[in-house]
C-alpha cells in the first residue's frame, strides 16, 4: 500500500509537467499542443519513446522525455488514457465542409484503422476532436516527411491527398461528434 502510494506520488510528479501544456482534463488549450485525454496508451508509449530516443526531435518533448524509464513511459501513457476524451467544439461546424471531410474520410478509409468513432486502437491514435491546427500540422508533416511515423502507414496513405484535402480532413476530425 505504502509502495503504491509512493508510486502514485511519483507518477503525478511526472505527469505534472505534461498537463501544464496538454491540459489537466485531457483537453489542450495550447496551440499546436495535442489533447491527450483517452489517447491509446500504446500510441503514447511509442511517441514518448521516439522523443526519448531522439528519433523524433521536437522541442520541448525531446527534453521532457529525457531520462524517463520504460516503466515511466508506460505509467504516463496509462494515466493519460484514463483522462476524459477531448470534447468537440461548441461550434457545430460548417455542414458543407463537414460533408467534404466525411467524404474524404470514407474515400481514404481513415475510419478503418482509426475506427468509425476515431477513438483509435492499439498503436493507432485517437484523433476525434483533436486540435484542428495540430491535426493539420501533423498531416502535413507526415506527407512531407518532416515527421517520420513509427511505420510508413501515414506516409503512404497521405501521398495522394492535396493540401486542401488535409485542411478539410483536419476540420472534420476536429469537429467530430
Amino acid at each position, binding site marked *: 500500500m505504502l509502495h503504491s502510494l509512493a508510486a502514485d506520488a511519483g507518477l503525478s510528479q511526472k505527469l505534472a509537467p505534461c498537463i501544464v501544456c496538454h491540459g489537466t482534463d485531457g483537453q489542450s488549450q495550447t496551440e499546436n499542443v495535442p489533447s491527450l485525454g483517452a489517447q491509446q496508451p500504446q500510441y503514447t508509449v*511509442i511517441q514518448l519513446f521516439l522523443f526519448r530516443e531522439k*528519433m523524433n526531435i521536437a522541442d520541448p518533448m525531446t527534453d521532457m522525455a529525457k531520462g524517463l524509464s520504460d516503466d515511466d513511459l508506460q505509467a504516463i501513457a496509462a494515466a493519460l488514457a484514463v483522462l476524459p476524451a477531448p470534447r468537440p467544439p461548441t461550434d457545430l461546424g460548417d455542414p*458543407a465542409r*463537414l460533408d467534404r471531410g466525411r467524404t474524404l474520410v470514407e474515400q481514404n478509409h481513415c475510419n478503418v484503422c482509426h475506427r468509425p468513432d476515431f477513438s483509435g486502437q492499439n498503436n493507432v491514435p485517437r484523433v476525434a476532436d483533436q486540435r484542428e491546427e495540430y491535426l493539420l500540422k501533423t498531416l502535413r508533416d507526415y506527407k512531407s*516527411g518532416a515527421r517520420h*511515423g513509427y511505420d510508413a502507414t501515414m506516409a503512404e496513405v497521405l501521398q495522394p491527398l492535396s493540401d486542401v484535402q488535409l485542411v478539410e480532413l483536419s476540420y472534420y476530425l476536429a469537429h467530430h461528434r
Partner: protein
Amino acid sequence: MPSILPRSRIILLAAVAGGFVATATPVEAQQPPTNPSPSAAPLTAPAPTPATAPAPVPAAPPWAQARPDEAVSANLAPVVPPPIATAPDKLPLSKLKLPKNFHIEVFASGMPQARSLRVGDKGTVFVSTRLLDRIYAVTSSSGRPEVKTILTGLRWPNGIAVHNGTLYIAELNKISKIDNVESHLGDAKATVIYSDLPNYEPHGWKFLVVGPDNRLYFNVGAPCNICMPPATNAQIRSINLDGSDAQIVAHGIRQIVGMDFHPASKVLYFTENQRDWLSEDQPQDKLNRVLNPGKDNFGFPYCAGGDIEDPIYGWGHSCSEFTKPIAQLGPHTAPLGMRFYTGQMFPASYRNAIFIARHGSWNKSHKIGGDVVVAHLNPDGTVKSIEPFITGFIEDNNYVGRPVDMEFLKDGSMLLSDDYNGAVYRITYGPQRQVSRGQ
C-alpha cells in the same frame, strides 16, 4: 483457379497446416460477414444533418481502391512491434510447439524490435531493427549472452549481412559497411558504399544478403500496397562489395524480407509478400526462385500470388506472362526470413531444406501465420512439401510473439528473432535439451 502445385501436393500441404495453398473450393466459413449496404449507411455517429445532400464519392486513388468500404467493419490495422521489449520472464516460450526432440530457449532478450540475424566469424550475433534506428550485437565471451547496442541514428536498418569480417547494413536509402566489425563493437562507425536508392518509406526497409558471387543482394520494395511502381522500385538489385556496378537481378516484386542462396545450386530463393485488401483469402504470399537473373519478372503489380490477375492492374495481362512461385505460403501470412539449413545438429532430412518464418497476418479477420515452417525440396529445387516447425505465436486471434528471421550457430542450432517481444530464441535438437547458453 489454376494451381501451381500438383493435386497430391495440395492435399498433403492442406493436411499439414492451414493456409499454405489455395484449395480449389472457396472456404466459405472464413468469409467475413457481409455488411449490409455499407455505402448507404453512415459510417460515423450521425452528425447534425447537413442541409445539403452528401457529395458523391469521387473515384478513389488506385491504392485506396484496394480497401473496400466493408473493411471498416473488420477492425483491421497493421500490427506494429512495440518499442519496449518484453521482460525475460514474460516471453511466450511455454506456448510454442516444436517437433519431437527439438527444444527452444531464450538466447537473448531486451532488444526492442529484434529483426534480421547474422553471425560473425568470432560468434557475435548481429540483430537489426526495422522501425528503430539501431543494430544490436550479442556476444558470449563471458559464457552468458550479453546485448550491446553498437549503432544508433540509422534509418530503418532492417538489412544486415556479414562477410569476411565486414558488417554490411542496408537502411531505407543507403548501404554502408563496418570493416573488421567484431573488433569495433564499442566504436563501430559505418562507411556508406551505396546510396542510389529512393526515399520512399512504404516497403522502404530492405533485406540484405551476400551472394556466392561476392556481391550484395537487396530488395527495393514497391512504395505502396498496390500501384504502378517507379522504375527504381519493385526489384532485387545487386552491387559489388564496394558499392559499384549496380544491376537489377529480378523485376516485378512487391516486397521481400527474406532471401537466401541454395547451398548446392547457388540459385537465389526469396519470400515475397503480396498485396492487401484484395480479400480475406487471396492472394497467396509466395516463395520464389530466380533461375534467370536479370530477366525474371514476378508479376507485380499485374499478377498477385502467381495466379490472380490484379483487379486494377491486371487488365490486358495474364499471370502466364510472369515467373511462377515455387510455393504459395498462405494469404497475408507475411513470410519474412528464410534460410537453407546446412548445419549438422538437426536430423539429415532438414539438410538443405528451407526454414521460413511467417510473421503472421494483419489484413485478415482470423489471423494466420505466426509460425516457422520448413519447406523440403525436390532434387530439382522445387518444393516437395511444407510442414509446420514452430507454432503457437497466435493465441485467441492475438499475437504472443511474431517470428521474423533465423540464422544458425556453428553447432547447427537455430536462432530465431521475435520483433514483437524483442527477443532471440535458440532451437536445439537432441533427445535431451542441450546445455543452456544462459537466459
